[in-house]
């Protein structure tokens, strides 16, 4: 079976006075139908740009470099234009944004905004669209959906607004829901509710979910597979349980150690020294080597190949004694 989405050698470049910068540099991955995948990384790792590239929404003056490929059900998204591209945006791939406070138009009712997302992808009468809107608002757990449809965004709480954003993302019946840090801007208590809601909807609709986050805690138990991104590249991919049990890449290990835990002895939280390098001048060899405390001879000079590190687990690191997959 071919995967739902196949991303191959995705590169996003921005022209800069100092030379082009490449915040996404050779990203490849695939997502199956109904699969739950997480893309994890620090700010500046390129994870958000990767998901925007799926919808061809790279902000100006950035471009997707030639040689990149994004195939959805075999269709090359990068060669689509106009109507066909709009059918992907919101139709095949729904996008949930980070900040529900700023992602809704303040002068239009939330019902209007859901309704236009519905009618953008399906021809239907006014009454049908209205019913569909209310059903969607109901599905995302908004109480009194018929009444709330006439509310303006400023009249709703942050949690309700994010539910509206999810309803909008679902309006086109997408096969893939991309959620870009969907809970970062919300209160902690609301975060869990929204994540549970996404889980329930995914299970009911059997759509694939790509969850983008910097918080590994959000990932556990909610995704089948995790991809770890660093400096514009994916450096490790593994089944979620495997990644937590036996992270292969030193960066993933450091990321896990920097996460506070409720069980076990209380020690100092470990932080990773240094910061994500500058995309105009990525380090040579393994991009993590300047911050890695276990670097060996080839790390600075040669790019590490993908190596199998366990069942379904692969990582790009010279320390792994495995065979190339």
């Amino acid at each position, binding site marked *: 079976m071919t995967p739902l989405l196949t991303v191959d050698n995705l590169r996003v470049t921005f022209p800069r006075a100092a030379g082009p910068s490449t915040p996404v540099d050779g990203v490849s991955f695939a997502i199956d139908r109904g699969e739950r995948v997480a893309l994890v990384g620090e700010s500046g790792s390129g994870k958000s740009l990767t998901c925007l590239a799926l*919808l061809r*929404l790279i*902000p100006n003056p950035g471009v997707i470099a030639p040689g990149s490929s994004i195939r959805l059900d075999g269709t090359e998204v990068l060669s689509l234009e106009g109507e066909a591209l*709009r*059918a*992907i*945006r*919101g*139709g095949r791939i*729904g*996008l949930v*944004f980070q*900040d529900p406070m*700023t*992602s*809704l*138009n*303040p*002068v*239009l009712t939330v019902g209007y905004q859901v309704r*236009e*997302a519905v009618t*953008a*992808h399906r021809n239907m009468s006014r009454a049908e669209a209205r019913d569909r809107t209310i059903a969607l608002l109901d599905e995302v757990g908004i109480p009194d959906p018929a009444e709330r449809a006439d509310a*303006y965004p*400023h*009249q709703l709480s942050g949690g309700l607004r994010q539910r509206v*954003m999810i309803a*909008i*993302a679902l*309006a*086109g019946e997408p096969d893939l829901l991309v959620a870009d840090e969907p809970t970062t801007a919300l209160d902690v208590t609301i975060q869990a509710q929204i994540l549970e809601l996404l889980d329930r909807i995914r299970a009911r609709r059997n759509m694939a979910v790509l969850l983008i986050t910097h918080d590994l805690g959000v990932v556990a138990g909610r995704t089948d597979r995790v991809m770890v991104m660093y400096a514009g590249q994916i450096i490790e991919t593994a089944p979620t349980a495997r990644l937590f049990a036996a992270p292969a890449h030193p960066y993933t290990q450091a990321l896990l150690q920097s996460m506070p835990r409720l069980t076990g002895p209380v020690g100092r939280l470990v932080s990773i020294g240094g910061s994500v390098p500058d995309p105009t001048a990525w380090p040579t060899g393994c991009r993590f080597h300047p911050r890695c405390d276990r670097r060996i001879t080839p790390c600075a000079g040669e790019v590490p190949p993908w190596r199998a590190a366990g069942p379904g687990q692969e990582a790009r690191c010279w320390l792994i004694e495995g065979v190339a997959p």
Partner: protein
Amino acid sequence: MSRWLLRRLVDAVVTFLLVAVLVFVLMRLAPGDPLDRLTEDRPMAPAEQARLRTLFGLDQPLGTQFVRFAEAAVRGDFGASIEYYPTRVTDLVTSRLGPSLLLGFTVLLVNLIGGVWLGVLQARRRGSRLDRWLTRLSLAGYAAPSFWLGWMLVSLFAIKWRLLPAAQMTDPLLPPDAGWLSRAADVGAHLILPAVTLSIVSLAATMRYQRSAMLEVLRLDFVFAARARGLSERRVIWRHAWRNALFPILTLLGLWLPILVTGAVFVEQVFNWPGLGSLTAGAVMTRDYPVLMATALLVAAAVLISGILTDLAHRWLDPRTRDG
């Protein structure tokens, strides 16, 4: 909402009364006198002058004059013009209001439609050659004095090429039995040059405001989000972005509405347009107190009413201010 409106109305009435008193007093404090002009080139016997003073009530103390004026004005009577005696001021003003409104609304329409459309176009193509040239052209128009631009257009279109009439609002040689269609065409032809002149000098403001408001909105998250849900570009631009970028234009519109009523003094003079602007300008020269008083109050009323209308429109269009 109704309480808010009531307060605005009370404020407006108080302001209007203050303006009335101020204008009345200041006008009489200013040097010059309506009778000076009448006696300038033909000496008049003192007895004759005194008779005219009594006729216009100018011999009374200031307070009495104001009370008389106010009593009549409340009944809608602004007295007779001194310059055009015995024509009533109300007749004079109403006959001039139509032409001013015609010119004003034409310019407003051109301005709103053209300025908004061009401003949005500029914002969408920010930094392009088109954007830069539109900025240069609009600023050149803004910098051009309206009377100079009017003369240039007249010398080209009316005198050199003889395409359009140079002045007035109607052709005096039009046969009196002409149908309404040829009359309308005649007024339309006379309207073109003054309307174009006023549009050119005022378009830049709308374009600049619209461009910068639109640029600010276009980089907001919800515009991006609208695009991400697969809406057409036209819908993203007009329904989502522009709907949030029209508030500065609304404010600008509120500042313009009074000009519709008062007329554009320079352009009306250049084109001999029979509007309120030229009437007011003439009344200033001749110190025609009753006419000046009426036009000043008309301006005050227009400013206050358009202020209230702008606020109402703002509240109606922005749901966030409705609950406040």
